[in-house]
Every structure is written in C-alpha cells, then in structure tokens.
C-alpha cells in the first residue's frame, strides 16, 4: 500500500504541478557516436534493421533488431568504465545500488560561454560563483553542465572535429576532485558525447572527469538534452541504466521531475 507521500507525488504529476522532462536524445542511426583514434576499438553507432512490418516476414507484427555500443546516444557511464574505477565495489550497471538511480540535479548553465568558446572549461571559481546565486550544491547531487550543445543540428557541429581533435566544453582537472571532496556529488552529466571536454586528453590527468568520478565510484551521463527546461536546483533525475552483466554503462531514458513554472 503506497504511503501518502507517493500518492501526493502522483497527484502532483497528474495535475501538472510537477512536470516530467525527457532529457534523452532519440536513438537513430544519424546520432553521432564518439570517435576514437582509428587504431583503437570503436563504439558501434546505433543501427536498426526491420525483422518484419505487417508483411510476409511477419504478417501481424512490426519489430526490429538493433545494435549499438553501451556508450551510444544518451547513456550512463558506470565506474567500471574507467581504469581508475575498475576495482571498486558495485561498479558495474548491474551491481550498482538501485537507490543510486534517483538523485537531485544542479544544472550549471554555461551555454553563453560555450557559444563563444567551444573549449570552455568549468572551474572551481565558476562553480563557487554559481553557488552564490543559486545555493550550495547539495550532497549526492548530479552536476549537469548545460551548454546547449544538444541544439547543434548536424553531426559535424556536434562532434566539432578539427585537425587537432574534438572541441567541446567540459570540467577542468581541478573542479572534478573538488566537487567530489567538497560537495560529495553523485556524478557529472553533459550534452556532448563525453563528460570530459573534447580536448581533455591534454589535461592533467587526461580525461579528469572520467578519471576522478569513476575513480571515486561516481557516475556519468552523456548526450543529454532539454537541460534548458530545468531549474538550477530542485529537479529530480531518474536515470536507470540497463542491467547488463558486468556492463560499463548503457543507453537509457533519463527523466527529470521538476515543479512546473
């Protein structure tokens, strides 16, 4: 029997005082996937083939087979994904505590800075200034970086590859351990293909978001969208990856609950 809190929550959702925001990109073959140096194994892009469509292959039904990487489209990174997290307990999508699928979110809007500088890096000072305006980041919160990257219309603009690699925003190497140590955050989420900046291979350590988050048993979310519909604080995120045995991550539906304006 549900408690009054749950009944109240459902009522608020049904009467529109709470709204659900879909932070997930649609899975389609055109959605860009991260591209690594060609000598490394590559993540499969999303591909889909019809099995039948009310035709001779299956008269009364329509269904498809699809293939993709764990890290294609809007997806979740588990700590096992990175070498720094490989030996931590409960570090795969199937072994993570299910309570960790629900958490509050702080949305830090750097869309203006990102529009002017594709290599914008989030710093400790920027976060502190944000907290002056919007309040301290609560314990066990997602930190979501709103860059409006999801509004980039073509794969070329979204991956933003130049001769020296990809250019997209992310956290610098200092702010990540600070967020973990000083704010005990739940994980980091971005709108681009990686939680780390496009040029993060040049930071020290390389890919600091992956390195420190997963090295401290925290999580990552990528290819998010509609972050511009969330308040700076107060949204609740539901992000449950698929239960893949020993999975390093998975595509998923990321849903946010937030009070209607």
């Amino acid at each position, binding site marked *: 029997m549900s408690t009054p809190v749950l009944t109240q929550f459902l009522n608020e959702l049904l009467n529109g005082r709470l709204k659900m925001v879909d932070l997930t990109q649609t899975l389609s073959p055109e959605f*860009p996937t991260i591209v690594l140096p060609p000598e490394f*194994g590559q993540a499969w892009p999303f591909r889909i083939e019809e099995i039948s469509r009310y035709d001779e292959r299956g008269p009364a039904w329509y269904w498809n087979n699809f293939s993709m990487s764990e890290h294609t489209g809007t997806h979740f990174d588990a700590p096992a994904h990175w070498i720094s997290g490989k030996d931590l307990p409960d570090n795969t999508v199937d072994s993570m505590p299910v309570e960790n699928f629900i958490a509050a979110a702080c949305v830090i809007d750097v869309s203006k800075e990102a529009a002017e500088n594709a290599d914008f890096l989030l710093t400790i000072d920027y976060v502190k200034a944000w907290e002056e305006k919007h309040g301290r980041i609560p314990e066990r919160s997602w930190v979501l970086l709103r860059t409006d990257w999801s509004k980039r219309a073509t794969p070329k603009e979204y991956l933003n*590859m130049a001769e020296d690699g990809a250019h997209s925003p992310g956290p610098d190497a200092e702010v990540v351990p600070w967020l973990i140590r000083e704010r005990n955050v739940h994980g980091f989420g971005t709108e681009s293909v990686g939680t780390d900046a496009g040029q993060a291979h040049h930071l020290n350590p390389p890919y600091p978001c992956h390195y420190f988050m997963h090295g401290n048993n925290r999580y990552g979310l990528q290819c998010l969208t509609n972050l511009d519909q969330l308040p700076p604080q107060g949204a609740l995120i539901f992000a449950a990856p698929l239960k893949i045995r020993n999975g390093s991550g998975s595509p998923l539906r990321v849903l946010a609950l937030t009070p209607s304006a």
Partner: protein
Amino acid sequence: MTEPLLKPRKKNPVERTRLATRPPGARSRTALGLTRAAAEGRFELQVCADCGSVQYPPREVCGYCLSEHLAWKPVDNRGELIALSTLRHSNDLYFRERLPWRVGTVKMTAGPVVVAHIHEDCAAPEGTGVPVRLTLKLDRSGQAVLHALPAKDTPNMNDAAQMRESTCDPKFRRVLVTDGKSAMGLATARAMLDAGAATIFLGDPSSWKTVAAFDKLAADPRVQVVELDVTDTDSVDRVAASIGGKVEILVNTASHLRDGGILGRKDVILARDAMEVNVLGLMRLAQAFGPGMCFRAADGSNHAVAWVNVLSIHALAALPSRGAWSASMAAALSASQTLRAELRGAGVRVVNVFPGPIEEDWEQLTPPPKLAPAAVAKAIVKGLQDGIEDLYVGDIAEEIRERLRDNHKAVERELGQ
C-alpha cells in the same frame, strides 16, 4: 565516320520507360572460353596442340586433324572483311530495337573465317577485302561476341552504338561513388569526371569529418554530395529513394581495411566491422539500388550499365597478416558473383576490380610496389570503356592471378609465410 555521342536529352517523365532486352545468351561450355577471354579483355581462340590450327567456332576436337588437345591461346586478331550485310529487320527483340545493325564475314590472318559485328567505320568490301581488327567483347547478355574494328582507331570510334552496347563508357553517365571521401573514392570521382561523366554523386560516410580534397571536389558543379553510410540500412534506402533513378554506374568504394589475422585477437569486432562495410554494405546497396538500375538498363543512350566493386586480389587468395579483412574480401567476391547473376537479366554488368595494395594510410607498412589511387581509378575507367568484367590492376595482382592458375597451393603457402 562515327558521329560523336551527343549529350542525352532530358527524359520525358510521363513517357513509358523502355525495358531491357538481351541478345541471345545461350553458349556451349566450350564457347564460354570466349567469354572468359572477353571478361578480362583478352583475344583468345582455341589452338590445336598437335597441328597448330586456330579454331573457330569453339569446338571439342580440332577441325583439321581431329585432335582433342585444344588450348585457349592469344592469337593474331587481324583479318579481312570479305562480306558485309546491314540488317534492317530482326525478329529478335534486342536487335529489332537497335536496327540497322551491321554483321559481316571476316577472314582471319590466323586462319578461321568468322561472322562478326562490323563497326560502322569499317569500309564495305568492294572486290578486295578491307583490313580490320577483331576484338572479343561481352554483349548485353554477358556473353562474348566478335566485333570487327577498323584497322586503325577512328575518331569517336567508341561512341558507335554497337560499341556502346558492349561497353560501359562513363561518358555522359551519372556515377555514384559510394565512399567519396577516401583516397580511392576521390580518385575514382576525378577519373570519372575526366572521362566525361555528367554527374558524380559523391558519397559521404562521415559528414563530421572535414577532408579538404573532398570539399574542393564537392565545389565542382558536376558533383553532388550525398550522405551515405553503407552500414546503415536507412541511410542507403534514403539515398536510393532520392537519386536511385539517376545512377547509371555505381562504384562501391566503401572499404574497411585493418591489419590482423584471426588468432592474434580476442574479439571479432574488427572482423565484424570489415564484414559490415565490405560485405553487408554491398548487399544493402544492391537491395536499394539494384532494382532501379535494372529498370533503367535500356533507358536512353545513358542507360544504367555497370556496378563496380573495388575488391582486392586478396579476395582470391587470403593474406594471413590481414586475415579478417581477406575473409571479408572473399565474401564480397562471392556476393558480387550472385549479384552478377541477379543483374544479368537486365544487362547490367557487375565489374570486379582486383588491385594489389593501394597507396593509402592503412597500407603504410606494405613495401612497394603500391598502386596510386589515381592509377587504380584510371584502370577502372579504361575497364569500363573496354567493357571488361574482371579487372586485375597492377603487377602484384597480375602475378598472383598467374600463380593461382599455375599452382594455387603455392600461392597459399607463399602468402602464408
């Protein structure tokens, strides 16, 4: 003298499309020796090992000494045109649509007297024979026929209607290059433009990647970029829906080439990627573009005519250091043989290209000789202009082909060292 081919008029979209018909395609097993020669651009007849006589038509025993030791060999292709007829009537659907058609009798220097298609630039014999050259070409049934050409090349010789029926000339045709961003794809597109192609549909499998040479070529008014990923059924279907009715020559340059045998890895991911691009990509393209090309196989002077697969000599003999890729090449070859059978009914020729190593990134560590992409592209264009079906490009490809004929086991051992 042959009139130069004119740029085709725009098609009237509400007129019925003429469908493909074929010349008679039945041949005896022995006669298929002519087809083998024509497929590779050679001129060969049977020569008796005992009395040296050259045989025509193909037969089981020597017409002079009854020996059964007949071997296919290159022979002198010169002859004299001694009789000429211009057909103005035929009960055969194919020839009926292509009248008038000249046939004649040629007395070969090598001995036999043959009936051949006679090029319009060959003078009519009046009293004395007219010197001609014979050539074996595949007709629209994919079978070998003899053509008599003038003793020396004449202007616009290949524009003659008879010649265009036996060749796949890119002139005035619209060509799809499935991966136009690779070195091989760019070279193919340029070579086709140089050969007079009307339009190049330049396939872009990775729109997120900037390639200066691609952008430069795309600026040419004859070039249309199409985003095309052969691993994505939806992408292939959409491009076919958009331009499928305009593709007259399809060159599949999509290719996935990586080092690696079989035992050295602990996963089949690279092998799967190779199969996905090199084999399943071919099948997707065939399913999406094949029917349209068959439908337009007799539609105008620039009708659909050829499907070109850029494979590798290692489709015929695996290179173990690149075993997974070699397997995909062999699978692609097998698929293309099926495709050849499936497109033959409409007279669309499947051309398989077997180059040796090509000078490109993933062949960096292969010692020379390596083929420049431009050289392979040039060979492809010439092969289409000559009507070749199995095209071996470069010294390494030719050498492996000869060694396979001689002793395929030796090839296996030597490549496996």
